[in-house]
């Protein structure tokens, strides 16, 4: 846990005082990622660097767990906090292995143990240890260097990490890949992380909570969905963008939005039965499932009403189905692509679990506004 208590930093500059952090109060719960967000110069970096005391606060307190870090030896403190910067900062004179082991070496870890850990961490970011351990930073691509920068911060297994625009220098495609990789690692490691970004999409993707700053002040601190659904004022609303509701689509999985226990028909059912079921539920189509429950096809009410025969001979191909783990953005995109107002939802094994409809999604997004 990281807790900031009335944290303030005032810089004295020749042109007067600059209040870079203005009585910031916040808490990053254990194992969560908190993204500090805001326009350039709003104090994100300053606030973060006070945590590892690269910048000394003017006033206020910082706690990691129960320890007041302003009372700790700064050198020892920094060795317990993973630190990643946008410029990466790998030491060009050291091999990748020695770069990753920089903190373990400072801490005097056993060499065997730290080198084994370096190899293990490289594998986690899909870099082959055999190839990369003995290379030098200049012999790596930008994306590879950035990955090494991240695992260097993880090497000594610090409970807390500070990351200042860690993926800012990478092209958008690679950035998505690294973000996903990092989220996967975070799933295992559960570090308590302060993460500076200026990209709302990155924040929404990475954060458990987002803290938006303006001119040194913390304006709103909320979970991404709450922030997008209920911006506190017009500054926040402008900052998160006019398409903030669309951004929320990313935060909700199809599984959470779907109607479960859907009506189904089987191949041996008659069309009359199918039509009756649809009318009973007020649906215009119904999914045909196989003997074990896999989605096999679809029957439309317009085809079934008044027709004779069995579902098995008269169903159509399912135009599209979506995995329950996908996000709603993908679902909506798929609906538009296939010109459908609903989609069958399946699990990893193809079993039919439910359906999502455009109306349902609109309603779900709207509900949070109505409740407000």
């Amino acid at each position, binding site marked *: 846990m990281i807790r900031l208590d009335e944290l303030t930093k005032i810089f004295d500059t020749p042109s007067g005082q600059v209040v870079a952090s203005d009585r910031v109060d916040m808490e990053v719960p254990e194992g969560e990622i908190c993204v500090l967000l805001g326009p350039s110069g709003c104090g994100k970096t300053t606030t973060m660097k006070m945590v590892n005391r690269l910048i000394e606060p003017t006033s206020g307190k910082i706690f990691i767990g129960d320890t007041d870090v302003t009372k700790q030896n700064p050198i020892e403190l920094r060795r317990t906090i993973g*630190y990643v910067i946008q410029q990466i900062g790998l030491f060009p*004179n*050291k091999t990748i292995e020695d770069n990753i082991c920089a*903190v373990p070496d400072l801490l005097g870890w056993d060499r065997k143990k730290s080198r084994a850990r370096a190899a293990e961490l490289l594998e986690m970011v899909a870099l082959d240890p055999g190839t990369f351990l003995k290379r*030098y930073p*200049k012999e790596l691509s930008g994306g590879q260097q950035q990955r090494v920068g991240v695992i260097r911060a993880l090497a000594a297994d610090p409970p807390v990490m500070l990351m200042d625009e860690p993926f800012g220098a990478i092209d958008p495609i690679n950035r998505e890949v690294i973000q996903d990789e990092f989220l996967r690692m975070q799933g295992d490691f559960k570090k308590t992380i302060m993460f500076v970004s200026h990209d709302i999409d990155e924040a929404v993707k990475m954060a458990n909570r987002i803290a938006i700053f303006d001119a040194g002040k913390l304006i709103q601190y909320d979970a991404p969905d709450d922030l997008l659904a209920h911006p506190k004022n017009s500054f926040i609303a402008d900052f998160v963008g006019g398409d903030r509701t669309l951004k929320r689509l990313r935060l909700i999985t199809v599984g959470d939005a779907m109607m479960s226990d859907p009506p189904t028909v089987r191949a041996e059912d008659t069309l009359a039965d199918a039509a009756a079921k649809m009318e009973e539920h007020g649906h215009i189509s119904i999914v045909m499932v196989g003997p074990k429950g896999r989605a096999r096809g679809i029957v439309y009410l317009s085809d079934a009403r008044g027709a004779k025969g069995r579902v098995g001979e008269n169903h159509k191909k399912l135009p599209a189905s979506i995995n329950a783990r996908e996000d709603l953005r993908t679902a909506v995109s798929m609906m538009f692509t296939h010109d459908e107002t609903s989609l069958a939802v399946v699990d990893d094994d193809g079993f039919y679990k439910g359906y999502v409809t455009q109306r349902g999604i609109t309603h779900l997004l709207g509900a949070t506004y109505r409740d407000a």
Partner: protein
Amino acid sequence: MEIVGYIFDNLGLIGERTLEHVAIVVVAVGLAILTGVPIGIAITQNQRAADIVLYVAAIIITVPSIALFGVMIPVLSVIGQGIGYLPAVIAVLLYSQLPIIRNTYTAISNVDPALREAAKGIGMTAAQRLRQVEIPLAVPVIMAGVRTAVVMNIGVAAIAAYIGAGGLGTFISRGISQTDPRQLITGALAVSVLAVAADFALLWLQRRLTPRGVSIPR
């Protein structure tokens, strides 16, 4: 032809004078590294100190060596060393300060601030940052300063023959006073060859000392 004959007849003497010459330069530049590098590092901490030190070093280098020797004669005579080896070493030591201090200062202050920040942020002490990051990165530039100092001072040491410090300059001074072109040319040639050889030797050393990860082209 006469000269070639002279050189062959006096190979032993040339070798001896070369050793005397090298002894002046190596000892003086060696001491200059021991003083100049720490000074160069220290002044990165204070802009004002840096300005003053670099200014003083630059002034020293503009003093003609003959004048410097002249000034040292009365001063060092107090300890009975007015002429000879000691003033020669001191002159070379002083002249070497500027290239060594300036290059050290430039190299250390030009270390990428991001590296400095990364090193600090992961918990290195100031000494660890210097030893593990800043100095290894500065080595090529510091060594370039050492090379400049050595090559320049091989010339200065030649003039030290006039205050009885020995070395290859003796051929030149005698060649002039005895109007003997053979000695004069032998001395000039030997000084030049020594300077070029020293430059190459130090270039080799510079490459050896530069960390591999730094010298990789990119």
